[in-house]
């Protein structure tokens, strides 16, 4: 750990040393007295620096002889001091010298030079460029020009593409980050506000709902005037979408739990409050989640009048809309033919099948549905679903129809049909099982072998023995032996006694182990 720190420290020191090196490359601004004098001549007035003429012999100020005010005699420009010096020499033959004053204090020539150099280095003054008199010697003038960074002005940023690009990106980052934080704050604030409002509205809604449900009959509820209704559910509140949402959710939740008269009352109230219109509007929304919400409401509130609008969605390209629309039509429609389901263009997912199965299972306890219509669908997944329905609902009466169709369907469907026969355990349809045992499709053979154990006959046992003689895969062999064991234990025992193959003996041990009955 110490070693790592030492390396980091050394690296930092190295960086610092390099930085000093870079800073140390500063050039000498005024290298000698001649250049300083020339600079003073060119520059004119320099803040903080003034000049005064003094007698070259005794050092007394020349102008103090003529004036009492000490300020008189201070000259701000070096050229003026030179001119004054010349005129004194010419008119009075006075030999004067120029004294340097820094902030009114007498100073030496080197001190003045250092002072001006510092001003230049710090950028407190900018050196004036002498006018190019002849207009030709540009290079020599450029050499005399003091270096100044090109990035000092705003336009310089736009002149350098890389700097511009980086500046734009940093700015965009700040904007993006700012927007994100803003969005987060707004979203959180809205959500908090919404949660508070939901609680408030919920409290406002629960009381009147209970009162209406438990204290008013259906007739009284239907005959309520608008004024009476608005006393419980204020018209002003009903205009608020969030209030309506709470009301709908409450009614839907109660509707799920209630039965009989209460359901009717809730439906009547739903319509009296014109919530059904909002539901209908949702069905026409361009947002899929709104449409699905509308469909759920139609389904839960049993809004039969919306069925036509719902039917428009049963073949929607949106999976969720389609699923909910079919589920709603299944619940509300009086159509026992299931033709809308048979004509579905999109394949059914298992998720959809699970939902439809629940509804159909419930409906089939009240009325007989023509599930056989699904066998004629052009959509294979619908046909497969139909076979599953026979199995799950226990429609033994449709097995004969399935047997009729068996030869003309695909192998995937055959598997599903055999599964149905096996599940229902009706042993009078062995022919399709036996014929499938000889199929070249391994999956179909495995399914048929499995079914043979439940609904097979002597013929099945014979075919199984034939298949076992053909050295099947481990998985198939296990299924075949298991079926043979249930079909004819004597044949099974005879086979395992005769066949000394390791896998046969392993499978036999497995099938004989009471702990592995379900495996």
């Amino acid at each position, binding site marked *: 750990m110490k070693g790592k720190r030492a390396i980091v420290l050394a690296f930092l020191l190295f960086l610092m040393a390099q930085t000093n090196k870079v800073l140390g490359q500063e050039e000498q601004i005024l290298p000698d007295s001649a250049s300083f004098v020339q600079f003073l001549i060119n520059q004119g007035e320099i803040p903080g620096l003034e000049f005064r003429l003094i007698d070259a012999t005794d050092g007394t100020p020349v102008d103090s002889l003529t004036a009492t005010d000490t300020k008189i005699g201070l000259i701000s420009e070096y050229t003026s001091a030179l001119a004054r010096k010349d005129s004194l020499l010419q008119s009075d033959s006075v030999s004067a010298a120029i004294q340097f004053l820094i902030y009114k204090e007498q100073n030496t020539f080197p001190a003045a030079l250092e002072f001006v150099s510092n001003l230049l280095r710090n950028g407190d003054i900018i050196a004036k460029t002498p006018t190019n008199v002849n207009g030709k010697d540009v290079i020599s003038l450029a050499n005399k020009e003091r270096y100044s960074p090109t990035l000092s002005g705003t336009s310089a940023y736009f002149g350098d593409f890389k700097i511009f690009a980086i500046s734009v990106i*940093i700015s965009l980052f700040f904007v993006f980050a700012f927007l994100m*934080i803003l969005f987060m704050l707004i979203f959180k604030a809205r959500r908090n506000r919404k949660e508070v409002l939901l609680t408030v509205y919920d409290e406002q809604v629960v009381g009147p709902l209970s009162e209406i449900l438990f204290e008013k009959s259906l007739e009284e509820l239907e005959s309520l005037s608008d004024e009476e209704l608005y006393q419980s559910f204020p018209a002003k509140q009903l205009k608020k979408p969030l209030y309506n949402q709470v009301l709908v959710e409450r009614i839907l939740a109660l509707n799920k739990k209630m039965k009989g008269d209460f359901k009717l009352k809730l439906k009547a109230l739903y319509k009296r409050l014109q919530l059904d219109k909002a539901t209908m509007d949702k069905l026409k929304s361009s947002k899929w989640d709104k449409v699905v919400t509308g469909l759920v409401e139609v389904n839960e509130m049993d809004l039969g009048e919306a069925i036509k609008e719902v039917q428009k969605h049963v073949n929607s390209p949106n999976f969720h809309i389609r699923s909910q629309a079919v589920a709603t039509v299944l619940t509300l429609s009086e159509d026992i033919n299931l033709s809308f389901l048979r004509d579905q263009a999109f*394949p059914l997912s*298992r998720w959809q*099948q*699970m939902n439809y*199965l629940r509804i159909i299972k419930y409906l089939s306890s009240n009325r007989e549905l023509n599930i056989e219509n699904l066998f004629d669908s052009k959509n294979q997944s619908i046909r497969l679903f139909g076979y599953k329905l026979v199995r799950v609902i226990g429609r033994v009466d449709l097995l004969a129809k399935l047997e009729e169709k068996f030869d003309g369907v695909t192998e995937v469907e055959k598997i599903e049909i055999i599964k149905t026969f096996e599940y229902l355990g009706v042993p009078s349809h062995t022919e399709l099982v036996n014929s499938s045992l000889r199929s070249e499709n391994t999956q179909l053979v495995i399914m048929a072998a499995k079914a043979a154990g439940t609904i097979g006959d002597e013929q099945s046992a014979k075919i199984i023995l034939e298949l076992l003689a053909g050295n099947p895969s481990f998985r198939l062999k296990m299924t075949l032996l298991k079926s043979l064991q249930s079909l004819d234990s004597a044949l099974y025992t005879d086979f395992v006694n005769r066949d000394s193959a390791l896998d046969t003996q392993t*499978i036999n041990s497995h099938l004989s182990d009471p*702990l*592995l009955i379900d495996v």
Partner: protein
Amino acid sequence: MEVLGVMFLLLSFSVITTYILIMVLSALEMRDHRRKNQFADYQDIITSPIAPSVSILAPAYNEAENIVQNVKSLLSLHYGKFEVIIINDGSKDDTLSKLISAFELEITDFAYNEEIDAAPVRGIYKSKNRSYNRLVVIDKENGGKADALNAGINVSSKEILACIDVDCILSHESLTRMVRPFMEETNRKVIAVGGAIGIANNCDVQDGTVTTYRVPTSLLGRFQVIEYCRAFLMGRMAWARVNGLMLISGAFGFFNRELVVEVGGYFPKTVGEDMELVVRMRRYMEERNIPYKVGFVPDPLCWTEVPEDGAVLSRQRNRWMRGTIETLQLHRVIRLNPSYKIMGMMSYPYWSVFEKMAPVLELLGLLYTLVLIIIGDFSAFYFIALFIVLYLLSILVSSFSILYEQLSYNNYKDKKDLNKLIMTVFLEPMFIHPKIVYWGLGGHWDFIKGKGGWGQMIRTGFKKSEDKKNIEPTTLNS
């Protein structure tokens, strides 16, 4: 030098663009996921005869301390058709004996069919007690996690494999929610589904579920909270949006069993077996032109304890890096190969540049800066500007992932926790990221030295997805 400069600038811009794209894609995916969840009734799946059956595979190596509690938790999951297969991978402690006594296990004559090569199985146990009917315990010789999973696959009998770490905490709803993507697709086969993993350090756990979330106490722990949010709520969601997921976490992944067997199961010679399997399964589907999907569920359904100790974390990151390099090396035939569509043209290059090469490129960037300083061509302005941009990007991406967590699940409800996370966001680029880069470089170095991997095989790579099946099995030490 100028060319290198431009290259690094382009790389920086591509990092920025990629991450912004990931943020946008993941936001869209999260929005859709939340909307879909509104209408889903998961209760039906538990009992529906149409729902798929699940085999939970959990390898255990020296897990005696918590194995009984963990198995009980797995057996209590809310689902109709599932089995729990615990694979004791040659533990040196009393993992097996604890299981035997706690669940009244007895050795059986299970007909073990080695469809996928694995180290020898010593025995398969079932319980005499009908309450534990779903439990199967495999006792096998040590062969590593992937090998143990392969043995579990051989014993499994259900349609979907849920491969998990035995010490993971699973939500009761985990199975119902994870099988949903397998049930929803109509035109594509769902071959695998990944789940998000939460960090359980410092959290309260009750009845197998995290009840109170708290951020870990250490900076390394908090960094991993942010990192997991970034990886699961952003990265994986974005890749799931474009069906480009190449990695499903080994701690919580669901796979189509039939396909896993078809491609030859896990490859035990790589330390990145989870990623390697997904890539191989995808290749199999692409090479046969079968439409498929790899899904992802971002809901918090699985939690694990992450290492807060630098030494342990460094080994983990070293392993992850080697796993990534090995997988990319094994499947380099898909690199920029249009036949592999999104995986070849987008996912693979992304993993190569932004995951595998990231630490190397960062090191090169540092060296480049040093060279510039030495030769006196160093521009402090550009350096600082670029540094600020990347620092801001890091903060932006991390904040965004926390925002996701807050908007979607709001698990860290305590304001102090949120503040700590935000503080970590600012500190991470300075104090944690350099370590991650260093550990990643260690992974590269170890890969070059040939540590852990299967040298020649990995250098040669798989020409076809099924080539793994032709590799002779050998036993590895965990």
